């Protein structure tokens, strides 16, 4: 097994073209799956025994939360690869993924908060999952802020990589401590968010949405990566030819 295909992929001109071709293959299935998932979640799935129709918010809350965590791992892994093996493309992935992940974290918080209002009566509850999500958002914002403050791209890439790795190591510690902190204070009626007893007709739209969101992220990532590649390749001739096409 030769590594040439890998090096070829990581070479900017090839990657640029491949990413361009891949985008619709991510995008259209994503659209389809999300539509199907929405239909399944909003129309087909039966109302929950306890939460009635309100539980349907799960179909946007849970995928957003999942994406925020999945993207953070992607960020950390690609940053680590970029740092250790000095692959520029990996750093580009980290740079492109961060804002998207932050948006999903925000969505998870917003939908979680909206969901909480009818369930717990308040717009915000320091539930373990919401609190962890909030801290994750802070971690994302830190990454983005750090990258924005450093002008030299190389230094920015590597600094953000260190930060992402430090963050990912801390993440389990944060999760655990927040969970522990939350169980201490047996609040009055804090029911855990998103734990209706799940039947299959409730589950499949959720999985569909999650896969749909993931493919969506793939499409967005490809597009942002192409922009990153262009910005990073300052004077290459391939760029001139490619863009003139």
């Amino acid at each position, binding site marked *: 097994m030769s590594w040439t295909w890998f090096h070829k992929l990581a070479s900017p001109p090839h990657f640029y073209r491949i990413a361009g071709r891949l985008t619709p293959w991510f995008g259209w299935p994503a659209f389809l799956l999300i539509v199907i998932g929405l239909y399944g979640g909003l129309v087909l799935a039966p109302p929950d025994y306890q939460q009635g129709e309100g539980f349907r918010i799960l179909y946007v809350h849970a995928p957003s939360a999942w994406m925020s965590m999945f993207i953070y791992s992607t960020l950390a892994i690609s940053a680590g690869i970029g*740092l250790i093996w000095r692959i520029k493309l990996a750093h580009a992935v980290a740079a492109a993924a961060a804002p998207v992940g932050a948006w999903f974290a925000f969505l998870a918080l917003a939908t979680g908060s909206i969901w909480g209002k009818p369930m717990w009566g308040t717009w915000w509850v320091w539930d373990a999952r919401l609190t962890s999500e909030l*801290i994750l958002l802070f971690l994302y*914002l830190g990454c983005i802020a*750090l990258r924005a*403050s450093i002008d030299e791209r190389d230094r920015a890439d590597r600094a953000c990589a260190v930060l992402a790795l430090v963050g990912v190591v801390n993440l389990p510690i944060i999760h655990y401590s*927040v969970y522990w902190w939350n169980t201490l204070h047996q609040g009055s009626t804090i029911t855990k968010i998103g734990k209706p007893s799940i039947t299959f007709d409730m589950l499949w739209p959720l999985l569909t949405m999650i896969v749909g969101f993931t493919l969506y992220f793939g499409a967005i990532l490809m597009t942002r990566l192409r922009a990153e590649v262009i910005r990073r390749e300052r004077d290459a001739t391939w760029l001139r030819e490619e863009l003139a096409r």
Partner: protein
Amino acid sequence: MGLVYHGDLILAFRRWEQIAQPVVFFAMITTLVPLALSPELAQLRQIAGGVLWIAGLLAALLGLEFLYRADYADGTLEQMLLSGQPLALLSLAKTAAHWTSSGLPLVLVSPLLAISLGVPTDAMGVLMISLALGTGILSALGAIGAALTLGLRRGSVLLSLLVLPLAMPALIFGARGVDMAIHGDSARGPLLLLGAMLVLSLTLSPLAVAASLRISQE
């Protein structure tokens, strides 16, 4: 390595304001709370653990900036990088010096401030231990942030933004431990966890700092 530790300490103690500022800040935040909430000691006692910990954290953050700035400015940092000495060990020495000149004073002052919040005397030991561990963790984590934001404009704000989320677990256990002590329970669990976190951060932080310093120095 010992030289670095001593050198830093001497420098720090020459500039009294560097040591005094965080301490005064600590005292001031602790004063803000009763002013904002209530002079009732019974009420203050309920939140004392959290207040002291938050104030301590923020005050310790203040001192972080100075950690590498001077070395960066006068070229000592470059020397250190070129010297061939393991950068991680040097960083550990600097972190230790930072804690001695920044965290330790906060720990020593904390009982006085705790009294003002109605904390009973038998909780003082736990308070000081927890803060000692906590500021140690903050010195270790903060060193990473300081190294990453070296020389950046508005670096100090960014530094706080980066370090605070990482410090939240320590805050959770530290504040909780003090609360437990105030209520007369044994705070062993949280203190042990704090200790474990300190060991972990002291082991990993120098590596991250070394990497960050090399990156920032380019």
